[in-house]
């Protein structure tokens, strides 16, 4: 079943890649992939383990800047830089998570928010290394041996291959001892502990996992656009990742894809509204949350199932009204 799903997914990527000739569309799809990675990571933390992070842009930025600085300024191979970025992010996420995940609910939100701001300010102010507000230029394009990944199409394939890999990773984690324990923590932390789950250890683990996903997304982003500036990693980006998870559907791997797609595409579609763009954007998100509070995935599935039962048994569905 899951093999088929992955095969289908792979086929969709290949067909999309072959059919797309417009470089703008390709780039848009590549951004959807990067945002999907961000949402996927945060969904593991928020959707499954029930721990909020309002500072995930920090890890996104950490991944992007570590790789950018090492490869652009210090001429490291980008892949070595990626490795360094992942190691650094793991370390930082671990150190942050140790005290932070003792908090819960609003307080955890505040704590992670503060962390996000610290990293943002650090990136802006440490201009000798990061270039400060004017950003960092000349981030090299990626290549796999002789194979250059500079073209839009090659990069599209790379990003979506990584997305597919992360999908598999998430599915495997969710459907395991660890995944069950994470969901148990979400449903009731003290009960989870009473079942023998080391809740703080697992929470730190899933926090690090989601941070590494964000760093990976940051790496892919930096080497795609070749120029990064602090504004790509500010507070609003953190909020947007949270929105992707919530709109797409908490605790749903495919929901991350849906949420990331919608939030990437919506601003592009809404350009026609010019000045009112943000108003319409906000209204659409509000409407989704009001009518599909469980997110798009669950909401659309429910709608589909409702419509099926109505078509199948029109008589029974009218019965309650008749009785009244």
């Amino acid at each position, binding site marked *: 079943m899951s093999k088929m799903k992955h095969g289908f997914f792979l086929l969709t990527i290949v067909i999309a890649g072959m059919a797309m000739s417009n470089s703008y569309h390709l780039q848009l799809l590549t951004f959807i992939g990067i945002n999907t990675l961000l949402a996927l990571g945060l969904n593991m933390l928020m959707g499954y383990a029930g721990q909020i992070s309002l500072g995930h842009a920090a890890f996104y930025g950490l991944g992007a800047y570590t790789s950018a600085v090492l490869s652009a300024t210090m001429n490291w191979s980008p892949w070595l830089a990626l490795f360094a970025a992942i190691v650094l992010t793991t370390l930082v996420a671990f150190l942050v998570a140790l005290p932070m995940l003792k908090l819960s609910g609003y307080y955890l939100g505040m704590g992670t928010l503060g962390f996000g701001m610290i990293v943002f300010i650090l990136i802006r102010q440490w201009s000798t290394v990061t270039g400060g507000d004017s950003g960092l230029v000349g981030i090299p394009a990626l290549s796999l041996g002789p194979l250059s990944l500079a073209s839009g199409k090659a990069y599209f394939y790379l990003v979506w291959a990584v997305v597919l890999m992360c999908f598999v*990773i998430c599915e*495997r*984690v969710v459907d*395991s*001892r*660890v*995944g*069950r*324990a994470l*969901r*148990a923590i*979400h*449903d*009731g932390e*003290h*009960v*989870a*502990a*009473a*079942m*023998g*789950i*080391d*809740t703080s250890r697992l929470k730190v*683990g899933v926090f690090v*996992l989601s941070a590494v996903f964000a760093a990976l997304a940051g790496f892919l982003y930096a080497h795609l656009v070749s120029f990064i500036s602090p504004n790509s990693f500010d507070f609003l980006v953190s909020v947007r990742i949270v929105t992707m998870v919530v709109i797409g559907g908490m*605790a749903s791997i495919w929901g991350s894809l849906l949420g990331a797609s919608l939030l990437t595409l919506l601003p592009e579609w809404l350009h026609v509204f010019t000045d009112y763009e943000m108003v319409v954007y906000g209204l659409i998100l509000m409407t989704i949350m009001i009518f599909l509070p469980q997110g798009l995935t669950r909401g659309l599935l429910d709608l589909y199932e409702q419509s099926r039962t109505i078509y199948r048994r029109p008589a029974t569905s009218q019965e309650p009204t008749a009785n009244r």
Partner: protein
Amino acid sequence: MNSSEPITGTPQPLLRVKSVGKSFGGIQALCNVTFEVAPETIHAVIGPNGAGKTTLFNVITGAYEPEDGQIVYENREIQGKKVHEVVAQGIARTFQNVELFGSMTVLENVLVGRHVRMHCGFLGAIGRWPRVRNEEREARDYAWELLEFVGLEKMAHHRSADLPFGWQRFLEIARALATQPRLLLLDEPASGLNAVETQQLGDLLLQIRSRGITLLLVEHDMDLTMGISDRIVVLHQGRRLAEGTPREIQCNDAVICAYLGSDEDMRGLS
């Protein structure tokens, strides 16, 4: 079962609660409580509301740290240990208000109970090497057996929140058994059950004891408690009021006073 074991006096107790005290603010919830639980027995803790029964459970399971005294389990002091460490040592519990993982299926709930006897971490989950797959398969077999034991195997793939309340109780017991405890603490297992279900519960608890598991239960249903318990401890206002066999407790004047007595009698006792 253990006929080979030489019978020399009383067997080594599985759990020893030694002059345990715990207070919240100015209120002394437990004061100098001492008793012992022999292995493979059913031991009940009874007492009026507010007697400190649930606090006692929380102290034994590590949710609270006692201010005085020791909890000795299998000759090791366990007070002050973390909740999940206590479970790993072999003490499992159920809750007064059934606390299942509502978003998960019946089978998954029992599998969570198996967590503490499994080893797979994040890397194992991602890698799914043979060892992890074997462990997972064994856990599932174990969980199915327990579901059959409590009679819920037909509901395995339903969401646990969708079960009727009585079945949720049984599921909670199965989940606790999945941790392979030697001591199982049950906090008011019969509350909210009808007469038939209470009867089934009594049978189930006796079967659990015959599996070699020691039971410590807090219970208000006196028919059930007197019917299945080997020994009973009575708590009253955080103190041990009496201890003995069900028959002894039924005849104990102090106990009768505590349950039925007027305010004056109560003051006389404390």
